[in-house]
């Protein structure tokens, strides 16, 4: 071995790197990372299953039908007219069910028949093609009023004699479609950003509590600045998330392209896909650093997972409100509400990623990123300070967890010292 160590110490960044490297490797090669990678599959799986079941249920439910109760000739005319129109209007014409062929002079009560009938009748058309009467629930008869009128006109020979063919000239999209699609992209961006930041901030928090449980925190505190521990943990999880994002991107991209699709088939964001994805990574990183700092500061105060849950609950709720606020602001582009949502640090990343999907200007992003970086720097600093203050004041067997009746009477007076100290207490 070499000669004894002469001294010195690691710089904050060098020490943070050691912590980050350890945490990164430990997270990457853990079972929880596999679950982290599989995480997005679960919502897809659940969504797919729910969608499949829904479709099955939908298929099994009979489609609403229109009943017809007229004299024999009119019933035949209405049925023929329905067939004629169905060829032209595609799915817009309801199925027609013959309820009754009325004899001359026979009276008929459609409302009574609607109540009695076991068929899946949504409404009944009675009277004559010249004067049809549509009976049914208000929303249904209002929806079918037009099509029944056309059907009756056709049956009465009052409809158009010919339907000129319409030549179809397809465009990729329209302004209305584009705006609508961009809203979807914006919403998707916000949701993904929110879920990811919450997931990762939660992971960094449980990582810290686990570390306190391992009692290694005191070894770290004795050797390196606590700021390094804070920064190391924060950035290690960020690096882990980038790996996760890369893996997800690669997998989804491979499957998508393998299936013969291209990115162009997605609703394109206003800033274009490359810029949108770059901004998404930046905003995600900033959102995570903001929330992660907060969660780490909280984690330094907690000693158990239960305490972590209790302490982090208000933050999670506030973050949820921020997310909803940003979602609301998305529907008010250019308004004061959007500006406020972009200024509040915790809603800013969600607001701005939605803006990137909806609006092509880039300068607001430069401003927002600068502002958020400033907020991150301030919050990381405050978080590190809180962390440094609190992390050595609590522990799984912290002094404040000790009970006086477990202590020898002669040192009862000094128990308060340990309790105040709040450091892991001796066990003998």
């Amino acid at each position, binding site marked *: *071995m*070499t*000669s*004894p*160590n*002469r*001294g*010195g*110490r*690691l710089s904050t960044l060098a*020490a943070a790197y*050691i912590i980050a490297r*350890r945490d990164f490797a*430990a997270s990457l090669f*853990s079972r929880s990372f596999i679950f982290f990678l599989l995480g997005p599959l679960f919502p897809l799986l659940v969504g797919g299953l729910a969608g499949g079941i829904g479709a099955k249920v939908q298929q099994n439910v009979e489609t609403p039908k229109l009943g017809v109760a007229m004299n024999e000739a009119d019933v035949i005319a209405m049925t023929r007219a329905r067939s004629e129109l169905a060829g032209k209007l595609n799915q817009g014409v309801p199925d027609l069910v013959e309820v009754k062929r009325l004899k001359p002079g026979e009276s008929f009560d459609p409302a009574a028949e609607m109540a009695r009938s076991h068929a899946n009748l949504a409404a009944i058309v009675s009277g004559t093609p010249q004067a049809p009467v549509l009976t049914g629930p208000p929303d249904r008869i209002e929806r079918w009023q037009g099509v029944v009128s056309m059907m009756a006109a056709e049956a009465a020979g009052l409809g158009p004699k010919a339907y000129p063919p319409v030549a179809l000239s397809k465009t990729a999209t329209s302004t209305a479609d584009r705006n609508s699609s961009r809203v979807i992209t914006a919403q998707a961006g916000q949701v993904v950003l929110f879920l990811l930041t919450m997931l990762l901030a939660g992971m960094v928090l449980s990582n810290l509590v686990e570390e306190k449980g*391992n*009692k*290694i*925190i*005191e*070894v*770290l*505190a*004795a*050797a*390196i*600045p606590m700021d390094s521990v804070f920064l190391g943990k924060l950035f290690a999880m960020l690096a882990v998330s980038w790996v996760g994002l890369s893996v997800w991107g690669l997998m989804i991209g491979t499957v998508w392209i393998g299936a013969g699709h291209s990115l162009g088939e997605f609703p394109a964001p206003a800033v274009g896909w490359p810029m949108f994805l770059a901004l998404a990574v930046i905003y995600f990183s900033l959102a995570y650093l903001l929330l992660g700092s907060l969660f780490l500061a909280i984690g330094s105060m907690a000693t158990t997972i239960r305490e972590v849950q209790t302490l982090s609950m208000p933050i999670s709720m506030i973050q949820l409100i921020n997310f909803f606020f940003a979602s609301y602001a998305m529907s008010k582009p250019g308004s004061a509400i959007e500006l406020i949502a972009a200024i509040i640090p915790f809603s800013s990343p969600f607001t701005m990623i939605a803006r990137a999907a909806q609006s092509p200007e880039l300068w607001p992003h430069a401003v927002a990123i600068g502002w958020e970086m400033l907020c991150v720097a301030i919050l990381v600093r405050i978080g590190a300070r809180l962390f440094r203050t609190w992390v*050595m004041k609590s*522990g799984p*067997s912290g002094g404040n967890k000790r009970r006086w009746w477990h*202590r*020898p*009477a*002669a*040192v009862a*007076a*000094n*128990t*308060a*010292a*340990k*309790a*105040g*100290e*709040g*450091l*892991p*207490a*001796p*066990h*003998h």
Partner: protein
Amino acid sequence: MMKLGEAPMAGNVGDAAGRPLAIEARGLVKTFDGFTAVDGVDLSVPQGAIYGVLGPNGAGKTTTLRMLLGIIDPDAGLRRVLGHDRPQEIAHAIGYLPEERGLYPAMKAYEAIAFLGALRGLPLAEGRKRGKLLLEEHGLGYAIDRQIRQLSKGMAQQVQLLGTLVHEPRLVVFDEPFSGLDALNQGKLEKMIRALAARGTTVIFSTHVIAHAERLCDEVAIIAGGKVPFAGPVGVARDRIRPQVRLETRARDGAWRRALPADALPEGAFWNFTLPESGIEPLLRALIEGEAGILSLSIERAGLHDAFVAIAGEAAARALEEDKPEEQRR
């Protein structure tokens, strides 16, 4: 009071006898929520010494060590560790084994040692190499590739101990190093501490077991209720108690009995009493002249336990006894 910050940086401040000091603390105070856990602690730990901080649980030992290591800052007082007022500036030259042992359960034994070394500035590759070597040397070669979670508590404790020493620190601080170790491993640790001191490493450890301190330490600080009523060589602590005299006489009575000190108590043919301040010679003369017929006379120097009782008080000594593990009390 001497201002430590003004002391020369080369080496450390010397004590009254001119010995270079590895640690010097003056008037350290730490208060938690209004309770003073450490109340004006003074310590002078000579370089290369084995130094014990002796006291019952809750006496303020751990808080004192944590202040010396810079884990927590004192509310008042000055500390100087290996020539530095801020102990973390010299972190690479210090090894610390906290009372609450802790390692990452998923790490392999040699990696855990390397990681602890890396925290103290030892390059990882070198730490891995040394980690394997140390494990082999200490009979734990079979555990090199095992994860910490696969090791017994005692083995994990040994791995952490090796991790504390892997960067070859000049100062080693152990907080209750013997707790949780079986007798065999306690012996091994004592040997290791002696070997460290022989190499010139300063070792400071806290303990509530007087026997360890008595066997190992050159100097001790007795701490009770956050104060240090005594700090200095073990011999000086023991000399605080006057030696006990055990006298056996042929004669049962006579004029010689008037020469016995007032605290003399009979025990069969024996008398037990504290050696008078005037020394043994005048007493011997009086006993001979009084025809006591001395059969035997022994002077027993006080042990560290007696010194602790006298210095820290009965209550602290009782607490120390209660803190002992069951088997040691038996």
